[in-house]
């Protein structure tokens, strides 16, 4: 498969006389293949939006290489801009224009046929409200308008930053369907979101960024598998046998956590070995279920941003590559 988007060693440093140096992007890498829905994840302040802004020519990088549709950017950005639709951060529009005026002016600036305006308004469900001023819109409606503006060019690469923000449950589902349909039609979609359940549902691959560096990347299943830790839940026919089973498994080198009605095992490659081991001692399992991890727990683990009771995590406190499980607040924050 060919890469629609390539980023290698991207660097962006902000310097402040008072607050020192902050590496917003610290050698970040990313690759998105054609026709994918690609999730782009990271904690607040990790560099997601900086990456997208840099990619789209709004911020000048201090180093690294970027390419869109095979063209080096930002140099070739004017040539490929017509094939890239993007919304960056929250939707921002002139409040006194209607949605139709807003899109019509964008279409005019981009040499897009006027008929396309009505097509995208229909697509995002704003057809009947298109004549109203944007300032009367809810956040969700503005979000739909933002997506419409990104789709206006019928782009090959669609970059959406938090597109589901402010959408109602129906809207989120519509957005999910829309993303999938767009990908099936051949469009490549890069999706930045904090709604990880959605990302897990609709994305083919993900890239996770923390403190300006890539900390995980690949197909969703692969990323989940890499962090599943072989968790297995075991229940027995007779609950009073749980203690004996725990002792047996412990002796066999399996990490066991005891619960009143079940055992949680970790580091089990093949659950069948557990069943065999217990059966040999006449302990019969009623449930042997591999515990699947979700993207949210993997994300929290990779980025080390899981809430800790009694602690107030600061925005720059997250994991840096090579330091799993450790907070690195001073590494990427102001004053580093």
């Amino acid at each position, binding site marked *: 498969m060919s890469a629609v988007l390539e980023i290698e060693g991207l660097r962006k440093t902000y310097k402040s006389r008072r607050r020192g140096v902050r590496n917003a992007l610290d050698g970040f890498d990313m690759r998105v293949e054609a026709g994918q829905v690609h999730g782009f994840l990271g904690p607040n302040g990790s560099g997601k939006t900086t990456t997208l*802004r840099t990619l*789209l*020519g*709004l*911020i*000048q990088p201090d180093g690294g290489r970027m390419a869109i549709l095979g063209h080096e950017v*930002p140099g070739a*950005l*004017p040539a490929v*801009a017509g094939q*890239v639709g*993007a919304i*960056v951060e929250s939707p*921002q*529009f*002139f*409040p*006194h*224009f209607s949605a139709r*005026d807003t899109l019509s*002016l*964008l279409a*005019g*600036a*981009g*040499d897009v046929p006027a008929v396309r305006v009505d097509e995208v308004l229909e697509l995002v469900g704003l057809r009947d409200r298109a004549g109203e001023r944007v300032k009367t819109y809810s956040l969700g409606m503005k979000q739909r308008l933002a997506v419409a*503006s990104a789709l206006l*060019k019928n782009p090959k690469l669609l970059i959406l930053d938090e597109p589901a923000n402010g959408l109602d449950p129906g809207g989120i589902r519509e957005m999910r369907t829309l993303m999938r349909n767009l990908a099936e039609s051949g469009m490549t979609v890069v999706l930045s979101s904090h709604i990880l359940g959605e990302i897990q549902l609709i994305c083919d691959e993900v890239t996770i960024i923390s403190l300006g560096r890539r900390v995980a990347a690949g197909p969703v299943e692969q990323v989940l598998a890499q962090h599943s830790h072989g968790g297995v839940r075991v229940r027995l026919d007779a609950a009073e046998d749980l203690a004996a089973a725990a002792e047996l498994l412990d002796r066999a080198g399996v990490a066991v956590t005891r619960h009143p009605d079940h055992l949680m095992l970790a580091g089990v490659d093949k659950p069948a070995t557990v069943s065999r081991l217990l059966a040999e001692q006449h302990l019969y399992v009623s449930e042997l279920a591999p515990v699947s991890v979700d993207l949210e727990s993997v994300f929290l683990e990779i980025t080390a941003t899981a809430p800790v009771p009694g602690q107030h995590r600061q925005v720059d406190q997250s994991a840096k590559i090579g330091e799993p499980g450790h907070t690195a607040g001073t590494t990427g924050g102001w004053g580093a």
Partner: protein
Amino acid sequence: MSLYVTELRRLAKRRLTRVMLILLVVGLAGIVTAFAFSSHKLSPAVIAQAQAESDANFRDALREWERSIVECDAAKARGEQTDERYGPNCGRDWKPTADMFDPKWNLPYQFDFRAEFGDFIAVFAGAVALFGFLVGASFVGAEWSTGGMMNLLLWRPKRLTVLGTKLAAVLTTLTGVTVVLGALWTLAFWLIANFRGTTAKVTSGVWQSAGISGLRALAMILAAGAVAFALASLGRHTAMALGVAVGAGVVSEIGIRIATTIAGVRFGDRWVLSTYALAWFQKQWTLVDYRSCDFVQGQCTPKEMLVTWQDSALVFGIGTVVVLVATFWMMRRRDIT
């Protein structure tokens, strides 16, 4: 070209542009109407009436003078001191004469196109320059503050082209508004002069002079629009331009005047912006240093300093270019966040 047309459309669609244009037209129409009503054509009948009033006033004054002399003589006969009240010789030396009662004083105001239209060009230029400043600042300031500029740059990732096109749209619109309203303004005052004033001595030279004044007015309006656009773009907010305008006004018109007066700087007004604005419209402006004379010692001609419209062109031209260059330089370099 499509971007340019789109920016013209965007500017025309903006509510502030429309509201300010309506206010401008209403304001200018108000001035025209006021002058149309206050000006009266000096027909022979009106002139004759003024002459008659003047003659009557002269006769009244003569009668009063004669009565005063009679009173004075009577008082003098009673042995009273009269010089203080009636003057020496009972004021016989102060006999009113007919030339003391100019009939012009009794004439109503008549608009004289040749003598006065130049001032009205300056009034027009001031009003349209204010319009241009607000529209120019708001057009790009609102784009920056609402995120419209960022959206546009995602579509057209050529920063200087986008900013330059927006500026071109503002300047084109201001030129169009100035030309159309300027033509209507001239026509209105020409009609006032024709029907309720005078167009006497309006030669081709007068029209030529008015045309050149109109060009200077257009240049000032475009400079106001461009500077406001540039300042709002530098600060990424309309308020930046408005703040600088207020600040420059306070510093230039009040602060510098007070400071130069306290410091005893000769021709302190040469550091004040309004001096150059006046010189621009009046072709030249003379600053007078009254402190160079000691009038107690007798007659003295104070020193003068002449500020010409060429000086104004230099000051405003350099100022405009510096702000525009800074704006485009910043646009090329800055991170858009």
